[in-house]
């Protein structure tokens, strides 16, 4: 295992400490409880937004804490959901009197821990709503299963809901908006190489020198299938088509196109994927209204890419463009 770390057990706390030192103007960090909290939280009269999950997906979620996005992020151990105490403490820290929205990625552990936290917060009369993001079309969905995973759509939901909260929307409205984003967003990812959890010391799966895994999750969960490496164009098609067919996205739709690095894939390759994605969308009469390209929801050093498409309406577009001031997303502020 070749990593720039000290002790595997200290990885999360040291990284949080580093974030605190890098962004003192944006965030404060509770290293003990593994919380990243917006500097000026609680903001009175604003819905507080809390997200969280296992570490190893940076900049998500801690990198999205700040004005116009999250009020707090709860960091679990690497690839392990945080515990309810963290979300409960975060809810107390960020509640400005208008309630708190939990944005939860759909993993059994995350969902149950956030549920417990919500119960704990409600017991103290903090209004809490939870919205579960499940945008990964690589996973078969059904009433009888754990359902789809939450992946890239989470980043977009956090930005858009953060802007809505910032302009003063009610908890119900922000939660409904979050559901609307979730209903209109779909994602799929692939890996060229696996990731290694520091505490495990070896990769979570093995891929041959010419193998790739299609439909990967963000914790190195296996995907839909394993196959020979193919051209960027072909792989982009394999990711884009299930996404497009699922919603389905239609002629005339405007989308936010998000091409995400799984951590180890450079911009040069992301832009090549974006180029092909643009062609595919054009061929279907879908226009790219906004774009996001880079490492935003990662799986440690995994090489690979995920594509997320969000069908946008005017309000989402306006909220996407609204000021944001966090370590990883910053504009107009």
């Amino acid at each position, binding site marked *: 295992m070749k990593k720039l770390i000290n002790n595997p057990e200290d990885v999360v706390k040291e990284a949080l400490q580093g974030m605190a030192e890098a962004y003192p103007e944006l965030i404060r960090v509770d290293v003990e409880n593994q919380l990243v909290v917006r500097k000026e939280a609680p903001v009175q009269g604003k819905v507080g937004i809390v997200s969280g999950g296992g570490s190893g997906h940076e900049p998500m979620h801690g990198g999205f804490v700040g004005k116009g996005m999250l009020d707090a992020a709860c960091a*679990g*151990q690497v*690839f*392990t*959901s*945080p*515990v*309810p*105490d963290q979300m409960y403490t975060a809810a107390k820290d960020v509640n400005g009197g208008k309630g708190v929205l939990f944005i939860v990625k759909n*993993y*059994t*552990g995350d969902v*149950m*821990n956030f*549920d*417990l936290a919500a119960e704990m917060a409600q017991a103290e009369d903090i209004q809490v709503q939870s919205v579960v993001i499940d945008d990964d079309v690589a*996973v*078969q969905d059904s009433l*009888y*299963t*754990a359902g789809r*995973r939450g992946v890239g759509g989470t980043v977009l939901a956090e930005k858009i809901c953060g802007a809505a909260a910032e302009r003063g929307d009610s908890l119900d409205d922000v939660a409904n908006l979050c559901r609307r984003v979730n209903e209109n967003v779909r994602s799929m990812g692939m890996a060229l190489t696996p990731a290694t*959890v520091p*505490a*495990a010391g070896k990769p*979570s799966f093995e891929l041959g020198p010419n193998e790739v895994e299609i439909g990967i*999750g963000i*914790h*190195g*969960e*296996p995907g839909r299938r394993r196959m020979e490496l193919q051209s960027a164009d072909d792989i982009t098609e394999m990711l884009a088509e299930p996404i497009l067919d699922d919603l389905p996205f239609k002629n005339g739709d405007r989308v936010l196109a998000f091409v995400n690095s799984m951590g180890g894939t450079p911009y040069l390759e992301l832009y090549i994927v974006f180029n092909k994605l643009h062609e595919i969308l054009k061929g279907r009469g879908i226009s790219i209204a906004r774009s996001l390209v880079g490492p935003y929801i990662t799986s440690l050093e995994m090489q690979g890419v995920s594509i997320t498409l969000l069908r946008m309406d005017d309000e989402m577009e306006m909220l996407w463009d609204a000021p944001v001031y966090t370590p990883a997303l910053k504009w107009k502020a």
Partner: protein
Amino acid sequence: MVLTKDVVLTWLETFARDVEENRAYLTELDGAIGDNDHGTNLDRGFRAVLNSLPDERDKPIDGVLKAVGMTLIKTVGGAAGPLYGTVFLRMASAAAGKEALSEADVGAMLAAGTKGIVDRGKAEVGDKTMLDTWAPAVDAFQEAEASGEDLLAALQAAAGAAEEGMKSTIPLVARKGRASYLGERSAGHQDPGATSSYLLFKDLLSAVEGTAG
């Protein structure tokens, strides 16, 4: 024959040791169909339980069980944390106000734990989860108890059913938890949570045997 607090404490200590010994095994089972951390997660939780037990042992049974549940929820994370945490909280409620538990009390306590799993995780038997251990084990216990067996015999029935339940997960296709992402590829592997749950029943039996013997 009753289940006393001392036996409950022995049970918890035995299980904590057992999880530590089986940490790698449980994690490996999780590696095959999950994310490679079930043993690590549970061990983190039960080490915390062991650390806090000295402060809790003077409480009544329900106080001890509640403290265990709270500790697990605070330290385990993942799916196992809320599930096992809920199990112990619900068992605590069922045992509330009792100095020692009769056969019927133990049956009610275990049934309450099972209901906690279902409430929290929404799984059904056959979904390839820890419920596949708990449900038949509790059924076996209650059946034995209803037909007049004593605690030891009822727990022997429960542990046997737990083992069978655990093994029954091998051919199943997972429909809940992380393993469900694998679809058909999850068949052929024993569920890690079902396995740790079997250890819990086995250790309850051996704690009772220890006092009985």
